[in-house]
């Protein structure tokens, strides 16, 4: 390691300024990274993290400021140029082609061969080598990417970027779809890259990971650098306060939730099975409670939630709502029975990016609420309702007419929440409601879940994040290999370790499948 100078920055960004219409996204940001360090970028949604990274990777051009690599000033105007300079980026949104195989994706545009015909054998060997270097052995190279679970797609994405010669690796929230084990594995990998002298920039909302694995961090707030600091000995609370710019107390949520009082049964699930994914699940959901469902990736919790909304195939079993057996074969039937679902994949499964905030919020309620007979939309009451929710949920948008494409992730999530709050259904099912969302917004969403339960709604939250599940649930279900393995009626009495043990099927006294 003697050759490696780890104190001179490999990358320096100076005075970076970027304006969007009406917004100053970055305001003279100075940022530098040294070889062999993992440098975290910390900030709330809209703080400018993604913009800064997009400037570095050539997606955006800065209005002002300079970038130099290894002391040499460079201009990066296109993602290709960034790659040529040794800057590789793994984005939060996957950039894989779903219909192509793993191997095809990793070497897309650089396939081995004579220029006309791809040398399939060499392609597979190289792919294998890349994945082996990364310690990934569980992925079949000939499988189409769309057939892989999201977490494995993420690994393929990372492998794709790492198959280039890199000096600087940018990871934009790479762990948001990974389980804890997979995250640990990823960081194992990052450590080995670090030893090779690669500078790693890590954008994440998860303080725990940041503090556990990163060396230094730069905190952004409203487009400005608050501080660049050594992360040794820093606590989560300190980080959160720097990021939000105010004291934390008001953001805690726990304990309150256990005080929820549950009412009568609203939904009863009997012997629900989904072929090869969920086996004989039985439970009752009550009025005014928040049920947290957790488990390892693929334990069946997501499928269970989707089955209750009518978007899961091969479902058998009985569902009883208010004493009557019902069939849920489509979302519109689920909605008719008062059930809605907010999935983790908000861009693909929730939003209409080209439509306005207002139109996104009111879509399911148009006919039931905003119809002016015989068949017109009542614009003024529609606008009023949308504006009310924009205010109530603190959605940052110019107005109800702003296009959803142009607003940040946390606000997009709130729009979907607003959509279903307006629809005012009795049972709300959330899959990973706070995925990719900063602590401030998270706290707001938790507050909302609590208030909803208090108002007599029944809430189901599916999440792999144990602190979240422990913090907000009034009951916790643990799924293990497709069965409902354990139910904790008193979340305040259990620790994260106990919950983790149950998730991994290591429970001493639980029901075994």
């Amino acid at each position, binding site marked *: 390691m003697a050759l490696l100078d780890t104190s001179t920055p490999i990358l320096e960004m100076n005075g970076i300024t970027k304006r969007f*219409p*009406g917004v100053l996204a970055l305001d003279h940001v100075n940022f530098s990274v040294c070889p062999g360090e993992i440098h975290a970028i910390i900030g709330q949604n809209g703080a400018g993290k993604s913009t800064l990274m997009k400037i570095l990777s050539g997606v*955006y*051009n800065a209005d002002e400021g300079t970038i130099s690599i290894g002391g040499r000033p460079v201009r990066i105007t296109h993602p290709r140029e960034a790659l040529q300079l040794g800057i590789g980026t793994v984005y939060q949104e996957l*950039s*894989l*082609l779903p219909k192509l195989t793993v191997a095809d994706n990793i070497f897309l545009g650089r396939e081995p061969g004579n220029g006309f015909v791809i040398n399939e054998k060499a392609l597979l060997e190289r792919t294998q080598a890349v994945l082996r270097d990364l310690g990934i052995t569980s992925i079949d190279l000939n499988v189409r990417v769309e057939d892989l679970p999201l977490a494995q797609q993420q690994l393929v994405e990372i492998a794709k970027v790492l198959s280039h010669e890199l000096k600087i690796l940018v990871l934009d929230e790479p762990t948001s779809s990974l389980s804890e084990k997979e995250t640990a594995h990823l960081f194992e990998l990052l450590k080995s890259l670090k030893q090779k002298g690669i500078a790693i920039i890590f954008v994440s909302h998860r303080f725990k990971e940041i503090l556990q694995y990163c060396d230094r961090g730069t905190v952004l707030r409203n487009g400005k650098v608050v501080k660049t600091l050594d992360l040794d000995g820093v606590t989560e609370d300190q980080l959160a306060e720097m990021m939000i710019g105010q004291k934390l107390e008001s953001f805690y949520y726990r304990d309150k939730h256990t005080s929820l009082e549950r009412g009568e049964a609203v939904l009863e699930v009997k012997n629900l099975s989904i072929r090869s994914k969920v086996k004989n699940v039985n439970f009752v959901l009550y009025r005014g409670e928040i049920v947290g469902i957790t488990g390892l990736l693929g334990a069946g919790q997501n499928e269970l939630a989707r089955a209750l*909304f009518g*978007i899961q195939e091969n479902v058998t079993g009985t569902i009883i709502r208010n004493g009557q057996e019902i069939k849920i074969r*489509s*979302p*519109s039937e689920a*909605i008719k029975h008062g059930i809605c*679902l907010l*999935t983790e994949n908000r861009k*693909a*499964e*929730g*939003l*209409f*990016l*080209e*439509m*306005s905030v207002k*139109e996104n919020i009111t*879509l*399911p309620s*148009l*006919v039931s609420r905003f*119809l002016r007979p015989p*068949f*017109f*939309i009542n*614009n003024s009451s529609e606008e009023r309702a949308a504006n009310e929710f924009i205010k109530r949920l603190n959605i940052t948008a*110019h*107005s109800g*007419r*702003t*296009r959803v494409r142009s607003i940040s992730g946390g606000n997009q999530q709130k729009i979907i929440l607003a*959509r279903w709050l307006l629809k005012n259904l009795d049972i709300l099912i959330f899959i990973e409601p706070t995925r990719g969302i900063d602590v401030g917004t998270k706290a707001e969403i938790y507050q909302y879940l609590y208030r909803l339960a208090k108002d007599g709604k029944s809430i189901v939250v599916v999440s792999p994040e144990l602190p979240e599940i422990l913090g907000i649930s009034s009951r916790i279900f643990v799924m293990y290999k497709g069965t409902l393995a354990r139910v904790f009626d008193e979340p305040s009495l259990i620790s994260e370790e106990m919950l983790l043990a149950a998730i991994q099927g290591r429970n001493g006294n639980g029901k075994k499948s």
Partner: protein
Amino acid sequence: MAKRVNSAVTFTKQSKSRNKNSRSLLVYLSDFSTVLVALVLFVFFGLTSTYFFSTANLVNILKQMSVVGVLGVGMTMVILIGGIDLSVGSVVLLSGAITGTLVYNYSFSPWLATTIGLFAGIIVGLINGLFVEKFGISPVIVTLGTMIAVRGLGQAILWINNSWVWVTNPFFITIAEGRILGFPIFAGIMIGLYILAFILLKQTPFGRYIYAIGGNQWAAHLSGVPVQRVKILAYVLCGLAASIAGIMTASRIGVVGPSVGNGMEFDAITAVVLGGTSLSGGIGGVERTFLGTAILVMVLNYMTIRGIPGIWQAAVTGFLILIAVLIDRLIRRRAEV
């Protein structure tokens, strides 16, 4: 993967930001690039040809726009949901042939014959919609099939009467030549349909659903939107518009022959694209298609006035599409980066 949308956005006016720097001006312009192009052409043609601005010619332009314009109304809806309908040209023939034959050979009243003709268009639209939605076949393939089948059917009906049928009943002459308060009924039908379609798209849940489905079909399904029904209805409306265009064409020409409506589907698609409605769905509207039709017809009209041989029309139309798409793309790119 990143799907770059190649057309201007919907007509909704974005809240204008205070600082009018060059970028937000460009964003603003990209919303109205079609309007600008239409206006510039209009003024340019008027200044370089004295006849162009005459009332007679302006009325003529409106009449020339009418058939393609009516087809464009239906086509816009189908394209907005991410589909396409290649069968509209054949429906023009079918509805004309049915209506004409019923009146000419079987002495039906023109009202009844027209109703049956329109119904034929609805049936074709329904078949298109059902095949695309219930069996999940690509709309290009389905409507290519109905395009051929429906043209064949129309020609078979004409064959009863030696392949030609006269449409000279006063009812049809009124459609083609009649005026109300000096305004031609022919163009009035088109304008009326545009107003209806505009209200349908912007002011009813059905219209909102069309944009939602075109933007993100799965998310629309998850929001409880009756996706299948809306999409099938879009095809039905497209078939209906095509059969209206068919009656209009028959009335105007006064005779229905086997090649009526040939290639009209592409004129309609051209008008939609020129207007700036995205072929991938979700973005655009009938008001844009109206402008697209106007641009198309104005250019052809101007060429005629200036004595440019008709043989050049196809070439010019083709380049027009390329230029329209290019201008739009350039403005958008400058605005986005």
